[in-house]
């Protein structure tokens, strides 16, 4: 085996230019694949992150009816805890479930501000500031002023919304809203901060206020519209479900609550899974194209060495060993090409993971909010990606090499020797 390995290495050095062209072909394909994968996972990661931060948490507890009426921001299907004892008792109990790290309460409601002759529609999020900072790091997105504090009549707004309302940090604003009992009311708040959100839709519509204030003005004390549960690992969120289900079946007699796992109960995620699958085919397609180039070279090598092969088999090398020899030659080219491709592709993704690719011009006017797409993507530089592409390259190339290698192995020694 060692002998065959050395022979393969030596053979490759016989025509350096031929070897390097094939390696370059493989390398180009691998660079493309590394980069494309980095970009796609960048897109998916940022979308998933937004989905978790603004929609779903890792697991979301809501009222069954609320799921259907979410678009309406209906307040009639709020969470009032187990048997109406309030959400805080419920979140304490949820925190005790193994695997749940954090419970983030949110009270989402629709509101308007009257501007001269028109009404500006907005979405209010009653939040617990400490939980929200720990979860979405909203404090880092505040570009002016500070986060709201529990107990005080203050709000923070998206930069786009502030502009629409023609207000500055420090101004006061009167918000109009409808309580769950159907009465139309107004309250005045002081704007203490400005949030910049890269998602246009959120930037233009959202304001945050302390949860207790939201509950007070909406006459919903002890109620929230949703509880987001955060676990230590988003991909293992489903493993917490049994514990949660046990808690709910024990505490909640009415059965009106449902648990939504972030990557199962939303159609958006299914779409992304399909896209990822389609792209996997594209990657293999690109590598296969490069393999054709290599196969070509190998066929020539086999032709060139027909006499040599005849000689070797006459000297007692079995056909299986000849198969190994040529497959190994191809595999070495595959390894070299994949290695170069992985390194260069890695550098490329690293560079773009810092500077990012700006799609904002292309997405102008598009309702990016529906998709929670960011206008700027950063490729993800991950070892997993590099290893995956390297291994994929080597495997596909080695398999492709078997075809010309079999041809060499099948040669009859006498026939092969006779050929000039």
């Amino acid at each position: 085996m060692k002998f065959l390995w050395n022979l393969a290495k030596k053979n490759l050095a016989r025509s350096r230019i031929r070897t390097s062209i094939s390696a370059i072909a493989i390398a180009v394909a691998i660079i493309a694949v590394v980069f494309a994968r980095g970009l796609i996972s960048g897109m998916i990661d940022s979308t998933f992150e937004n989905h978790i931060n603004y929609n779903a948490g890792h697991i979301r507890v809501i009222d069954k009816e609320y799921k259907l009426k979410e678009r309406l921001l209906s307040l009639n299907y709020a969470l009032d805890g187990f048997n109406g004892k309030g959400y805080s008792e419920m979140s304490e109990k949820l925190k005790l479930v193994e695997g749940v790290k954090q419970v983030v309460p949110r009270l989402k409601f629709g509101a308007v501000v009257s501007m001269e002759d028109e009404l500006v529609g907005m979405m209010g999020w009653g939040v617990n500031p400490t939980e929200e900072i720990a979860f979405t790091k909203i404090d880092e997105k505040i570009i002016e002023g500070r986060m709201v504090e529990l107990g005080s009549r203050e709000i923070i707004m998206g930069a786009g919304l502030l502009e629409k309302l023609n207000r500055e940090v420090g101004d006061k604003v009167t918000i109009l809203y409808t309580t769950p009992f159907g009465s139309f009311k107004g309250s005045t708040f002081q704007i203490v901060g400005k949030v910049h959100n890269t998602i246009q839709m959120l930037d233009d519509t959202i304001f945050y206020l302390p949860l207790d204030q939201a509950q007070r003005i909406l006459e919903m004390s002890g109620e929230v519209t949703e509880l987001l549960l955060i676990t230590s690992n988003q991909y293992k969120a489903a493993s917490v479900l049994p514990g949660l289900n046990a808690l709910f079946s024990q505490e909640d007699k009415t059965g009106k609550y449902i648990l939504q796992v972030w990557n199962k109960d939303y159609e958006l995620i299914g779409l992304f899974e399909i896209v990822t699958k389609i792209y996997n085919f594209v990657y293999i397609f690109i590598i296969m194209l490069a393999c054709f180039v290599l196969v070509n070279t190998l066929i020539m090598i086999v032709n060139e060495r027909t006499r040599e092969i005849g000689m070797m088999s006459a000297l007692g090398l079995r056909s299986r060993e000849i198969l190994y020899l040529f497959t190994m030659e191809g595999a070495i080219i595959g390894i070299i090409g994949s290695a170069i491709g992985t390194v260069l592709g890695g550098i490329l993704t690293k560079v773009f993971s810092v500077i990012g690719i700006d799609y904002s011009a292309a997405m102008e006017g598009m309702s990016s909010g529906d998709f929670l797409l960011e206008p700027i993507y950063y490729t993800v530089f991950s070892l997993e990606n590099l290893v995956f592409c390297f291994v994929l390259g080597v495997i596909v190339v080695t398999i492709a090499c078997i075809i010309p290698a079999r041809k060499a192995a099948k040669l009859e020694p006498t026939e092969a020797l006779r050929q000039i």
Partner: protein
Amino acid sequence: MFSFKLGLKNLTRQKRRNIITIMVIAFAFFGYLFMDSVMGGMEEMSFSNIKNYDTGNIQVVHPEYWKDREKLPLENLIYLNQDLEESIKNTDGLLGVSPELRFKANLNNGIDEVAVLGLGIFPEQYNEVFDSQNYIFEGSMFAPGESKAVIGVKLAELMDLKVNDYITLLVRTKEETFNTIDVEISGLLNAPNPMINNGIVFIPLDIAQQALNVGNEVSLLAMKTASGDEDKITRALMDGFKNKNLDLQAYSWRESAESVIALSTAKKSGAGTILSVVLLIGMIGIINNVILSALERTGEIGMMKALGMREWEIVFVFMVEATGIGILGGLAGCLIGFAGVGLMAKYGVGFSAMGLDMSEFGIPILDKIYGTWNVPAFSFLFILSVIVALLSSIVPAYWAAHKDPVKAIYHR
């Protein structure tokens, strides 16, 4: 001439190798053409969605209204009078004209309220321009003057509404006072357009005009033309308006579809990147091919040089061979591409088969997506393949031809 013939003959010498290189190019092209076709299909679908369900082929509006059209103002409306009707009547090629009054409204079912787009229409004229009437899912369209409405199925589901239920639309009139429109639902629409299904309430135009206190005014006139005629008719309409001193402007659907067009440009740049990678690999394949041939024929090259053939002639021989591969590869690629796109255009791919309802995501695809024929892409790729083959062969051919004849023959 001799070099040319030699090049052609060389093309048949290593059949297997050349066929593999041709296959590289062919598969690369097939991949690109197929992708291009699917994307074209998606684009086509969103365009026809805009034309058939939202704007019509041409919209006639007041220029000031056009600027603010997203806000749905009730100012700068069009007054339907004799002059306007005449100038429209005199325009050839219009297949239908539908006056529309668009307004903001809040739909109330007694429990919840949701913001919707209200659309006052004359059903008959609306049907001449738009396809929506084919998608009445339940019930029927209203007649002018009836206090009835047609809404999308998704909206009905959201608000728990059925045919014959009563709804209240809360609107603000031209004078900014609040008013309500009480209507009975006469039908439900399930059109292949998410906006219609989710957020539009159709009511008779006269009812809307009365409630909004706008007299005989409308927001816009949506018009249907044969596709491709938009620009010509837009110009004709504008001339007509100028003659009558009407301060109106005609816009083709393209101007309302800016965001969709921007999106498809973004997608195309993505496709361009993949195309360039694929072409690069094809290029390397051709370079490899030339180098392999040159290596094989080193002795031959030396012989030709010793016999007095000049370097550029040898380069030419290799270039002919490579270009031949480019042509064959391009042809083969176009042929399989033709087959693939043909199948795609005929049968399409169903998203519902994958268990997805695309309309959930605001993408106007309901059921199936079909490929489109992009004939320029075929010829463009073919020419590109020939040029790329020609160019990428020059350097390795020169490398081959540059060898010292003595050394080259001695090689054996």
